[in-house]
């Protein structure tokens, strides 16, 4: 059975649809990447799936249940959402901040159980945050904060993890670290992940399936090998590329072709 089925979704802001008639499914397990140029509707799609935005048309089924009919708490127990932009959080300690992820599983007044404490400690150590537990989140670097936010999502013990550009503003060390971890969780813990990425090579390296969006619709979807071709990428991004192979993993690798001469020519016209 599919984890999530998006059916004919049209959504947007102030009656202007930013995405139209989108249909696809996310199978259980595995990482599904969403790529596409700026303004293609990736974040609108993300916000619709995470229920921030109500669809104008169509529906989304989570294991055959319409998500519009699920209670907030119920949804939060199954789906963790890690949006792209986070303003500076209040001065919680790392441990307090991560603990907030257990709230969907506990009643308003029931204190954390030993199980909760265990889950929190486990995820802190998984993300290498144990030594940071008493630091203030407001004083962390970008890479540390991203790991803390991810830890908060993971202690929700979700079946589906939605992430909007978790690697934005991170250096390559932290990009690879975050994605390695997500890959590990998907393989070992059976977590299903939907992830928006800008970097085509990271999408190729880590995603089992890739969905390419353009102009508010799905342009293509499939395995990285079948979708990340020169033709498709040039069509979607209007940028000349060549596609080769990663010498180690044999996954597609996209090479960009600098066009400095052409730009100068265009400027001279």
């Amino acid at each position, binding site marked *: 059975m599919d984890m999530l089925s998006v059916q004919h979704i049209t959504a947007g802001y102030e009656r202007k649809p930013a995405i139209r008639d989108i249909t696809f499914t996310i199978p259980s397990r595995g990482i599904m990447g969403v790529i596409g140029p700026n303004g293609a509707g990736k974040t609108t799609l993300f916000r619709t799936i995470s229920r921030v935005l109500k669809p104008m048309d169509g529906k989304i089924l989570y294991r055959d249940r319409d998500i519009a009919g699920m209670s907030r708490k119920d949804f939060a127990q199954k789906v963790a959402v890690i949006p792209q932009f986070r303003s500076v959080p209040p*001065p919680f300690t790392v441990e307090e901040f991560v603990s907030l992820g257990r709230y969907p599983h506990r009643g308003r007044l029931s204190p954390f159980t030993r199980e909760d404490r265990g889950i929190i400690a486990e995820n802190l150590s998984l993300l290498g945050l144990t030594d940071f537990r008493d630091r203030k989140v407001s004083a962390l670097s970008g890479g540390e904060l991203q790991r803390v936010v991810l830890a908060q999502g993971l202690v929700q013990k979700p079946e589906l993890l939605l992430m909007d550009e978790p690697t934005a503003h991170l250096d390559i060390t932290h990009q690879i670290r975050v994605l390695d971890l997500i890959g590990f969780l998907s393989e070992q813990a059976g977590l299903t992940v939907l992830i928006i990425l800008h970097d085509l090579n990271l999408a190729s390296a880590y995603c089992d399936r890739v969905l390419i969006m353009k102009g508010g619709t799905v342009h293509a979807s499939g395995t990285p090998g079948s979708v990340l071709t020169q033709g498709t990428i040039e069509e979607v991004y209007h940028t000349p590329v060549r596609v080769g192979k990663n010498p180690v993993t044999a996954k597609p690798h996209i090479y960009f072709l600098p066009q400095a001469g052409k730009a100068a020519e265009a400027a001279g016209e």
Partner: protein
Amino acid sequence: MNRGFAFLILLVFLLAAIVLGLFTGGMQLPPGEIVQALFRPGSDGIAGTLVWELRLPRIFMAGMVGSALAVCGVVFQAILRNPLAEPYTLGVSGGGSLGAVIAILLGISGLPMALICFAGCCLSIGAVLGAASLKGFSNSMLILAGIIMSFLFSSVVMFIFAVASSREVHSSILWLMGSLSAPPDGSLKMLLMILPVMLSLLFFSRDLNLLSLGDEPSYHLGLDAKRTKTYLLLGTSLITGVCVALSGIIAFIGLVIPHAVRGMTGADHHSLVPCSMLAGAGFLILSDTLSQIIIRPLELPVGVITGMVGGLFFVFYLLKSRPAEVT
């Protein structure tokens, strides 16, 4: 600092403030007489009247108002996600001032004045919440509407000052500075009415933790932000309205106490809410006692003391803390 320890320290601070308030004040009596009067309620004599009819009610009122303003500050700072928010941010003081000034002009005092003042608070809060509800209680809309309302109402107050006689202006200004010296008759009852609302805030620690992350993150962790915000805004507005109506505008407590307590307990509202209540109560009782003895036999408006102490604390706090810790 350990949370239980912080709670204990603040409890001791509150008790010390109560004891100090009981034994000192505008009039000096030997401590022995006060202790005697304390154990014989209803007894005649100066000590009995002083303890049971003046000092204890006044301590109770200072404690309630202080703790109410402090906890409302905590709630507003969490909801608006702004460390500079305080109970007056949403313009409640503007409406309250207008009501009070009108009452003073008309020669109304006591409970009717408190009610007119409260009506003014309700009017401004209603306008702010009404405007903000059109935009789903977005924070920027709340803050903007609050500032606009404050300006509007204070302009009307200025207008009244410009045309009123100087004696009325003087008593209005004294009232605006905040004072606990002449509470109207029904004030204890009004305070008891808001007590359940205040206590209910203790059960919202989890929601406040989530709200302080922002609307969307709290939504993703299962919170119905709009409904929770609506209850909290209405509840705290009611509390603030009653406080303003009974004691004028007591500056800085709602801003300074939450910051000071956060420095002791951290940002988790499970400890921040109860500790702020204790600290606010203790601080206002202490300030009120000081206001009675500094220029004895005259009395200072307590708002002058809280404003000065609070302002100095804030300067010190901002200079001492590193930028990342200020928020």
